[in-house]
């Protein structure tokens, strides 16, 4: 420090701290709510993505489309409830929509969630009408289906990925240093747990089309491989943080669970067969939850470690 050279007494950089009191605040979020929302929102986005892709590039399995829409609706509904419950003043959740500001990841997310929720709601409405026999089938119905799926595709991709950016746009060192990686990582985890949910559904109540389960398993393998690669690469920027070297046992267990489930799930998906596919789906879904808990937990601990902030803010 140039300005301080004149004097004798200046503490060495990084040796200093104020009796270990954290210089920044840890999140006020209630335990479990936010990782739970990340996970459920991700499942909704992933399920939507995979059934849309099946419509565009695959077999147009109507049964899969129907299941995907119900999964998206259920998961998104549940996730939104968690998100609203976590607010200090839940009755004011609509205040998020009184402004539009792309510099706030939380605000952008609220708008993305609204758009995606609209598409999912519309899709569910059409689906229910059709199942009750109120809406016809045929070319027009197929075009309507494709239109609705496309409408929700961009907001869906956004909802699956912005949650990582939400974390990295903070002053919490373990998240901030991984900026640029958490969005992609969460996008991959969303895709794999969305496919996983559909895979599990298909093994519990088999699809009429025999190829659907096989194709889903291939998609599962691809998504898990991408997720594994991204979770490996995305950890590097934060590896030098002091809080990483003092990782407690429960966090190491979560890390093993997140990475292990993805790796074993990948092998199961590649192996094929009913039981292996079921295992792959379950592992992908469980691994997605473990990953979200791992990332939020490590951030909370990083916020409580002064040396992490000194490393980040210099």
């Amino acid at each position, binding site marked *: *420090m140039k300005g301080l050279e004149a004097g004798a007494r200046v503490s060495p950089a990084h040796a200093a701290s104020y009796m270990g*009191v954290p210089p920044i605040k840890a*999140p006020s979020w209630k335990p479990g709510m936010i990782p739970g929302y990340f996970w459920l929102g991700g499942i909704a986005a992933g399920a939507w993505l995979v059934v849309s*892709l099946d419509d565009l590039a695959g077999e147009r399995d109507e049964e899969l489309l129907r299941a995907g829409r119900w999964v998206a609706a259920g998961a998104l509904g549940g996730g939104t409830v968690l998100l609203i419950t976590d607010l200090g003043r839940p009755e004011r959740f609509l205040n998020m929509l009184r402004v539009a500001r*792309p510099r706030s990841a939380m605000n952008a997310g609220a708008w993305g969630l609204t758009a995606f929720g609209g598409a999912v709601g519309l899709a569910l409405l059409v689906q229910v009408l059709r199942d009750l026999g109120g809406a016809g089938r045929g070319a027009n119905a197929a075009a309507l289906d494709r239109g609705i799926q496309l409408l929700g595709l961009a907001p869906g991709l956004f909802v699956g990925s*912005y949650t990582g950016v939400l974390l990295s746009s903070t*002053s919490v060192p373990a998240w901030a240093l991984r900026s640029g990686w958490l969005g992609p990582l969460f996008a991959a985890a969303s895709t794999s747990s969305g496919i996983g949910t559909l895979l599990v559904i298909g093994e519990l109540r088999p699809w009429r089309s025999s190829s659907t389960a096989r194709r889903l398993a291939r998609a599962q393998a691809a998504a898990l491989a991408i997720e594994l690669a991204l979770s490996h690469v995305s950890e590097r920027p934060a590896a030098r943080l002091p809080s990483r070297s003092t990782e407690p046992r429960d966090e190491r267990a979560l890390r093993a669970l997140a990475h292990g489930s993805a790796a074993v799930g990948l092998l199961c998906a590649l192996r094929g067969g009913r039981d292996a596919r079921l295992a792959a789906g379950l592992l992908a879904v469980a691994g997605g939850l473990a990953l979200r808990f791992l990332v939020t937990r490590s951030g909370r601990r990083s916020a409580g470690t002064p040396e992490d902030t000194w490393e980040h803010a210099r």
Partner: protein
Amino acid sequence: MSEQRDVAAHAPRAGAAPLASIVDWERVGARQEAELTAGVRIEAGKRYGFFTDTTLCIGCKACEVACKQWNQLPAEEVDLVPLTYDNTRSFSATTWRHVRFVEQLDEQPDLQAIAKPWGWHGSEQWADPGSRWLMMSDVCKHCATAPCMEACPTGSIIRTEFDSVYVQQDICNGCGYCQVACPFGVIEVATETDGKAHKCTLCYDRLRDGLEPACAKSCPTDSIRFGVVDQLLEEARVRVADLRARGVTAYLYGSGGPLEDDCDTSALGGLNCFFLLIDRPEVYNLPAVPQRPSERTLRGLVAGMITALAIGVGVGFTLRRDAR
């Protein structure tokens, strides 16, 4: 009259027209109390802040008490930071001024020698010329580009006509995103009480009525000085030069530019509340180079969407009809 028009002219930054001051100072031709106590006239449209000279702080905590009294904030449970007289520990939803006590000893005293009666040789046992006590009254910095305000998804956090950063309590929904955005750990959601985010208001209600903030008014050594930021900066630079001439390693934290080569607050565009420090920022629990979290937002969102799309393309290939 013209005063009111001035207020309206500066209002659009805050989004809504502020209420006019209760007293129309020009019409009554009176002086504001702030002119008598702080030597500054408070007018909408100017940048106000604090210059906190930590070399003058005696750790009396009058500022903390005055803040709590004026803003009707309850006391915290006593929780002493080890080895200090700091009983509030850090900022919270109900602690908006916080006095730190940094005790620096040249050598750790040899307790065993002191305890032995025959080891007592008078005062030279305690002679420790390098030891010192750094005290600092910390506060919300009212950053020029405030991370809390950028993070706020409801637009509850606004910039007032005095260039301070203010939480509108009737809009905040307690999402807590400002709390993790602040690089200084200032703002906090009161999870146990009203569920909303709270921090220093720069005594917005007092400024509107021509009173300087409660903490600055109560400071008995003038360690906390309230005023127009540019004038405070001039004063502060004179003080730094004076201290350096006397061999004290003084510098300003939060003056905006990269004054020191490894202490730089320019990412936040400077701090309306800045400090004179005589040791590294970390010693006072301040980050040397606070970052602006929103710089990572747009880039991250785009990277996330592109990756999601690429994953979609990859997964789309695997979903193709079986080749048979």
